[in-house]
């Protein structure tokens, strides 16, 4: 029983992070109908930005609330800028081209970032994983059973990431459905040409969507790095893929769907690791994806659009 509770806690904690990364995918897909394959790698770069900031701050400042905020802010702002640049120079020129073109470009950017960061030239960090500093001092907020060797542990960072994720998702839901900008986003998503005719600055809306998505990725990446206590150039490839799986499971383009998909994926993976074998984790994630897609091609919350002839 206590084992089950522990797995539930871990699964939800992992799931919130997937969900946060998945939100970025979902927003970009919703507006542009583009699978931004580079999303996970933007996240990785954000984590390195946070890492560099934390290293510059030094040991004392890292534990403080201000220090943590600064680390998150730098990483998120840096990623927002990067998202803007990628959209402006790689995706925007291809907007009227077939969708496959943009997908291939995204894969190219993903490769450039993740393998570029593996090089050991100049400021690039090299391929070895590095220990991520303890930005949030880990503490057990809740234990069950023997205090020395508790059966169930709830860590402070798990609660913090869950709260942060819920807050960000709530904010996003508010942004999309309750603000003028959100209405513009939905209009662009529906038909960007008509939206442009109606006087909506589509380019600006798409840019801002990219920036928000990339900033979210950086935030999620930092939470992941705090959980995992390491950074490596290839982390983006696999976390990004998992998050994409989560987004598709929930129905890509759907904000609550991304959250549910992320949580489901986190739980499924955690239970596989806990009750079966950890080496099967990746296969189960993709198997789950294929199963969901075969039963409901639009994802759990998605609707299958009627095909235009």
């Amino acid at each position, binding site marked *: 029983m206590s084992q089950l509770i522990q797995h539930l806690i871990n699964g939800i904690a992992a799931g919130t992070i997937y969900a946060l990364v998945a939100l970025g995918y979902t927003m970009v897909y919703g507006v542009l109908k583009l*699978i931004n394959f580079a999303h996970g790698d933007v996240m990785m770069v954000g984590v390195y930005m946070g890492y560099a900031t934390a290293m510059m701050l030094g040991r004392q400042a890292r534990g403080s609330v201000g220090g943590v905020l600064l680390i998150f802010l730098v990483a998120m702002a840096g990623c927002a800028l990067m998202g803007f640049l990628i959209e402006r120079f790689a995706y925007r020129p*291809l907007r009227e081209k077939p969708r496959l073109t943009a997908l291939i470009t995204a894969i190219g950017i993903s490769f*450039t970032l993740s393998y*570029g960061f*593996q090089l050991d*030239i100049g400021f690039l960090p090299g391929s070895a994983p590095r220990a991520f500093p303890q930005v949030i001092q880990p503490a057990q907020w809740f234990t069950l059973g023997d205090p020395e060797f508790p059966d169930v542990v709830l860590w402070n960072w798990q609660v913090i990431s869950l709260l942060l994720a819920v807050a960000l998702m709530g904010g996003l839901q508010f942004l999309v459905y309750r603000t003028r900008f959100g209405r513009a986003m939905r209009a662009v998503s529906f038909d960007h040409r008509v939206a442009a005719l109606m006087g909506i600055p589509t380019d600006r809306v798409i840019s801002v969507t990219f920036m928000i998505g990339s900033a979210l990725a950086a935030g999620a990446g930092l939470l992941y790095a705090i959980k995992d206590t390491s950074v490596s150039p290839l982390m983006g490839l696999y976390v990004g893929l998992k998050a994409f*799986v989560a987004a598709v499971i929930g129905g890509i383009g759907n904000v609550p769907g991304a959250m549910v998909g992320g949580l489901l994926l986190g739980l499924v993976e955690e239970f596989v690791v806990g009750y079966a074998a950890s080496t099967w984790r990746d296969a189960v994630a993709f198997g789950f994806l294929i199963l969901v*897609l075969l039963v409901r091609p639009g994802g759990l919350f998605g609707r299958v659009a009627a095909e235009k002839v």
Partner: protein
Amino acid sequence: METAIDVSSSSRVPASLRGILPVLIALPVLLVLELLLRDSQFTSYLLCVMGVNVLLAVSLNIVNGMTGQFSIGHAGFMAVGAYIAGITSLALKDVAISFLPVAVSDQVLLLVALLVAGAAAALAGFLVGLPSLRLRGDYLAIVTLGFGEIIRVVVTNTQAFGRALGLTGIPQTSSVAMVGLWVFLGVLVARRIAGSSHGRSLLAIREDEVAAEAMGVNTTGYKVRAFVVSSFFAGVAGGLFAHFVPIINPGSFTFVKSMEVVVMVVLGGLGSTTGAIVAAVFLTLLPEAMRSAFSLVGPESNLAQQVDQIRMPIYGLLLVVLMLARPQGLLGSKELWDVVPRWLPRRRKGM
């Protein structure tokens, strides 16, 4: 889109010969090549790598280029082929066909292993092709990626496949002639498909699936068959690969390997068989050229050590630049002989 199919049948070659003429020309060339390269191990190794890459690119082109079903899990089929061929060869290790010389007997056994590997990969391709009945575009891409990863995880967890350590002791019997033979067969089949009514159905699916369906093309059947043919050759390529590297392990067949093949197909031009060949050869030689170039700067230079890593970001940038500057790839959907200058004697008919 313009395609390179010309069905005019005026030819100086008698019809009965036309089918086997390429074989009659190719076989002696391959055997001579094999004899010439007997002593230069590095050249033959490079040729084998090149051949495997060409076979992978040409086979992926059948699915990605001709059918327009964007598959990014090709390394998975290669893995199936490599492991099945490896296991078959290990099982046949002590067998020798007594009435044949050892070298020939080796090649026959290799051929058996490759055929088994191709069949197994084709079966996997059939299974992956089935979801393509319901999924298209980006979703299909991600499902093929998922299948590739699942195959890798299954291999990593199976005792018979040596888990993460992989298979060792596979006889190193891949020869330039055998690789060349399969490259030749792969290219021949790809060109034959492109020129047949089958191929035109694939092209119709690529251009507009709904319209093709409305015109009476059995889209699901053709898509699954394209997957089966493509993965058969990917499996053979994997089998050939397993028989010239000393060890195969799951690390050789990751997402990254799939992307390498995608880069080859995209660079050459989606739908162009000769484009895929040119791109595969170019991208195989590129790291070697870079290694030599960096070594000239300084033999112990940091760059020369990192060529294998530098290669990957270059592939990435290549994709981005290509999509921005020339999204149809080097050759588009044309073949090499369609783009030769006007004053050269032009090829007049399809193969």
